[in-house]
């Protein structure tokens, strides 16, 4: 189990491989990666602000909750902050479980809660140079109701 919040890029492929390697007797590994879109050339940059201290606490609490709800042999959350370019990987989660149902459900749960309950805020800069904060999507808040 681990939570990492960092400005540095991380090697998504290497993280996936190491997680699966360490998943041991799990049998099922699910990963999710979030990537900065360029919206067909409309966006040129993204900046992610976060709340140091609370971010780590919130992510660890979400991970703990997932471990209580499902039989997980391992879980991982990595989330970047600071400036990112289109195509860069913003964050990933990974879950390992004996059965795929648990691994999928826990990964979706981690994502749903991370989206709306971990203190990150995205600011986009368009190719024209306009910068603006990304609005929270109502569908993200609604997604929490299913758990």
């Amino acid at each position, binding site marked *: 189990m681990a939570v990492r919040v960092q400005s540095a890029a991380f090697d998504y492929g290497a993280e996936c491989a190491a997680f699966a390697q360490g998943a041991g007797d799990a049998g099922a590994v699910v990963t999710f990666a979030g990537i900065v879109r360029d919206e067909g050339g409309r966006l040129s940059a993204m900046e992610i602000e976060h709340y140091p201290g609370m971010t780590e606490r919130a992510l660890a609490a979400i991970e703990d909750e997932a471990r209580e709800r499902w039989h997980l042999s391992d879980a991982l959350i990595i989330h970047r902050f600071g400036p990112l370019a289109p195509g860069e990987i913003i964050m990933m989660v990974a879950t390992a479980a004996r059965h795929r149902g648990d691994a999928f459900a826990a990964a979706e749960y981690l994502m749903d809660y991370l989206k*709306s309950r971990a*203190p990150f*805020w995205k600011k986009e800069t368009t190719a024209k140079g306009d910068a603006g904060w990304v609005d929270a999507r109502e569908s993200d808040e609604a997604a929490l109701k299913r758990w």
Partner: protein
Amino acid sequence: MKLRVLYFAWIRERIGEPREDVETEADTVSALIAQLRAREERYALAFSDLSAVRVALDQELADMDAPLAGVREVAFFPPMTGG
């Protein structure tokens, strides 16, 4: 009492600083916001639409009517957009 108050994202931008120490007698988050709004236009602007404001007390999400007794750090920010 003295509170450490933090601002993030567009609330930080509107207020113009990321953190400050605030001397207050407010007993709830709402009362603290009312005190801040009364200070200057930039605070009034930052807190003009409370449906778009979230609050954390000592790094835990809280409600607007949560009591401030014993709290050291209050953070105001818009709805979160991670992931």
